[in-house]
């Protein structure tokens, strides 16, 4: 039973490594399956994810999808390091969407062993994935998720390193047996096993057949950090050469013989149902093959995409919107306010005397709000599918290949064995393509099923993509603190609205004796989902803005104030200090300029940003520079890590400056980039990223740079103008001198 297995894992936390490793390595029958599915002639799997070819080439099979975060380099780096492989003889492949290559057990081991969680507390990035399946082992085993900044932390730490080290031990054993010497007298280097005493050596390719017959050790000896030659090096990314000459094939680039193209018009109001559509408006148009009626949309299938797109735009489908067709952003704001005023809270967490400790001392209160946000990946959502003889073959870029396959089977009501899923690189993910958020797959599959025998590529236009996303939630947070005579907080009470459950990212790292966190549930018809850094993207703004307000109320320097509250945590302190030092915190700025600081730990990584901004005479906000410090424990690929922090800063800044999805008549107002503006070269600040290493467990890379951006800029605006922005985005605020 599932609970028993989890209890075993939980019970073994002290030696979690060994237990998790036990799950990570395959029994021999899975090796044979893997060989059948994914070994080319001359190659052989030695254990999970590692193939060795007769010419000694090592191929690392990565159970993730590429969305540009560099994991196709970082993960093989970790495996190759332990395997003592020569990097020039290492190749990388994407694992097939087959349960043999699931990464779920790794994620589970990682979640349970590193976050002190029990099975009922699921991290936000996995919630959509596991909402219905976490409680069954089979469901969880079939994850292949890329998200939650988890690739290096879970697959790397619990999978790749162990697989590499175990493979190395198996190869040494095989060589020692052939030479009839002690394994301890053999060493490995550059894809060879060496017997130093006799000067003999074998290439890995000569040994792999023998080596694969041994059972992999569940607890192989890992290298000490001091012996690393690959991990910690900025090895150039393996995916980049194909991304500069246009040859990377993304989902949208799939081309099949006799393929048709589909364009869609989905009910603008979420949850609306298609009642009727008059196809007369497009009759006689060139290339139109079929008008497909779906539950919530109308689709036009044509011989070319632009013909389908132009035709569907001419249709005027009628949708039944139920009760949601009149909802506005104003009404949703009123619902959140009412929920917070009602006092009908659900307890999230309490420390000390919690909310009872409020009062008596000086009370400070502020309420913050963040808007809905779209992901706006550069590649609009799309999928290509063919339905033939009761089977489906589908091509798309998603953040979970196995999850996509299971979803397709369920949608089509066919057995999973009847579904072949081809996982392709994604033109951006940011959480949009995680399981639970697969409307594009459903639309593509249902369209293909209406056209049996014909491959159909369905592409959302940018407008459909932006108006049928799963949005970063619209959240309001009332924060209250009691402060003592020196202005330091003795109690911290956070009441926040939520679309789902409690948010662990609401909890602060600062030392405050009495803390209370309570949620107020708000029902809406707007679909929400994980957006790069998930809960931390909003709580980072709330907490770091409020701490800044407390510092100013105490007439203390915001950096000094944070230092006082972090005396218990050297890691946070060091990261904060590094950012401050590199940014020249405390050096004077000319009038009209401001400097702000913020620090957030998320996904196991601590990131501090210092923002320098200028407010023009017309109130125009310009972000001049962001200096960042990040501590991910150990960094596998420093340049790749820096690239992720840079990108996260820009993603977070786009949202903070301009990002806002609003609702009118139950539907999204914004449709394309002119009205959902993002950072471009013109508005991109200078960015410096400094890495700090600590003994902490390896943290994530893709997301942790996002949360501190908005509050660092908000705090800089306050420093420059005295205006406290408590509601994002900044574009909605008048920052002119006259408004102060």
């Amino acid at each position, binding site marked *: 039973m599932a609970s028993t297995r989890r209890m075993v894992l939980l019970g073994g936390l002290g030696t979690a490594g060994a237990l998790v490793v036990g799950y990570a390595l395959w029994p021999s029958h899975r090796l044979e399956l893997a060989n059948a599915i994914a070994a080319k002639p001359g190659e052989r799997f030695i254990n999970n994810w590692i193939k060795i070819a007769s010419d000694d080439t090592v191929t690392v099979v990565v159970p993730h999808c590429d969305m540009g975060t560099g994991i196709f380099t970082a993960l093989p780096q970790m495996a190759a390091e332990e395997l003592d492989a020569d990097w020039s003889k290492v190749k990388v492949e994407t694992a097939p969407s087959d349960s043999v290559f699931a990464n779920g057990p790794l994620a589970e081991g990682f979640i349970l062993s590193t976050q002190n969680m029990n099975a009922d507390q699921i991290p936000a990035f996995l919630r959509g994935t596991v909402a219905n399946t976490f409680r069954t082992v089979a469901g969880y085993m079939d994850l292949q998720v890329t998200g939650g900044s988890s690739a290096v932390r879970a697959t790397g730490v619990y999978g790749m390193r162990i697989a590499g080290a175990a493979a190395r031990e198996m190869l040494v054993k095989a060589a020692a047996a052939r030479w009839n010497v002690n394994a301890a007298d053999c060493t490995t280097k550059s894809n060879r096993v060496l017997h130093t005493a006799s000067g003999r050596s074998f290439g890995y390719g000569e040994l792999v057949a023998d080596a694969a017959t041994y059972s992999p050790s569940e607890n192989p000896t890992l290298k000490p950090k001091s012996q690393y030659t690959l991990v910690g090096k900025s090895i150039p990314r393996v995916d980049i050469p194909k991304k500069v000459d246009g040859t990377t094939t993304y989902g949208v680039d799939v081309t099949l013989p006799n393929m048709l193209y589909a364009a869609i018009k989905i009910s603008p109001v979420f949850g609306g149902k298609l009642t009727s559509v008059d196809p007369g408006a497009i009759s006689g148009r060139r290339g139109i093959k079929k008008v497909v009626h779906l539950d919530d949309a109308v689709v036009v299938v044509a011989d070319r995409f632009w013909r389908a797109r132009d035709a569907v735009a001419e249709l005027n489908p009628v949708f039944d919107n139920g009760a949601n067709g009149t909802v506005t952003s104003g009404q949703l704001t009123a619902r959140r306010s009412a929920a917070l005023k009602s006092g009908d809270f659900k307890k999230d967490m309490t420390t000390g005397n919690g909310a009872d400790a409020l009062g008596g001392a000086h009370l400070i209160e502020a309420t913050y709000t963040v808007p809905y946000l779209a992901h706006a990946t550069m590649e609009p959502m799309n999928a290509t599918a063919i339905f033939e003889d009761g089977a489906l073959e589908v091509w798309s870029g998603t953040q979970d290949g196995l999850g996509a396959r299971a979803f397709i089977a369920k949608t089509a009501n066919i057995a999973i064995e009847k579904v072949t899923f081809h996982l392709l690189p994604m033109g951006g993910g940011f959480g949009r393509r995680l399981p639970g958020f697969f409307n594009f797959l459903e639309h593509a599959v249902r369209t293909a099923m209406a056209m049996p025998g014909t491959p159909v590529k369905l592409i959302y236009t940018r407008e459909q993509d932006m108006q049928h996303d799963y949005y970063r939630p619209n959240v309001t947070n009332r924060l209250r603190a009691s402060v003592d005579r020196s202005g330091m907080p003795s109690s911290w009470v956070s009441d926040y609205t939520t679309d789902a459950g409690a948010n662990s990212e609401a909890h602060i790292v600062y030392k405050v004796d009495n803390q209370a966190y309570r949620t107020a549930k708000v029902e809406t018809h707007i679909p929400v989902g994980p957006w790069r850094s998930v809960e931390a993207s909003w709580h980072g703004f709330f907490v770091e803005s409020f701490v800044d307000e407390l510092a100013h109320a105490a007439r203390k320097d915001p950096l000094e104030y944070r230092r006082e509250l972090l005396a218990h945590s050297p890691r946070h302190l060091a990261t904060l200090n590094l950012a401050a030092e590199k940014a020249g915190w405390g050096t004077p700025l000319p009038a009209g300029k401001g400097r702000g600081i913020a620090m957030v730990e998320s996904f196991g990584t601590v990131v501090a940003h210092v923002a320098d901004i200028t407010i023009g005479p017309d109130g125009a906000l310009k972000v001049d520079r962001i200096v960042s410090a990040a501590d991910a424990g150990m960094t596998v690929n420093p340049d790749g890590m820096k690239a992720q922090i840079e990108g996260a800063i820009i993603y977070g800044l786009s949202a903070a400056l301009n990002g806002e999805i609003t609702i009118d008549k139950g539907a999204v107002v914004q449709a394309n980039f002119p009205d959902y503006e993002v950072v*471009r070269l013109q508005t991109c600040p200078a960015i410096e990223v400094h890495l700090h290493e600590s003994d902490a467990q390896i943290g994530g890379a893709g997301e942790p740079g996002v949360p501190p951006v908005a509050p660092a800029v908000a705090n800089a605006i306050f420093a420059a103008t005295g205006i406290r922005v408590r509601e994002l985005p900044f574009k909605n605020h008048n920052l002119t001198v006259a408004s102060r």
Partner: protein
Amino acid sequence: MSIQLKINGKIHDLDIEPDAPLLWVIRDEVGLTGTKFGCGVAQCGACTVHVNGNAQRSCVTPVSSVVGAEITTIEGLSANGLTPVQQAWIDHQVPQCGYCQSGMIMAVSALLKTKPHATDEDLASAVTNICRCGTYPRIRNAVRALANEKV
């Protein structure tokens, strides 16, 4: 109706409408998928190609307007191996997801042809393409290196 287009030096006789968007003709008719669809309204630049050497957003370009012109896509740019711009993209580890980079590289290549010593300001005003992964700092560094090399 037959329309003749010259793409990457090759003539294509195409049975398409005069107002067909160049982007989709390049992708669906000619089969060159390196040029990307991002927004469809000339906002993001993912679809940037060269028309007679100038950067142009192909998603809003009717094919009738480029008959007789030299059209170059990312595939054409790379026909004789990597250009210095593409090499700089590798040297500076610019791409992340990579989806916008064909358009970025086409836009930057056109800029550097007319302004070999382009400044940060020249770059920012000429290249308004969107990258959601946030590779702008590396694009800036790559262009700085290219602009300085040629001094």
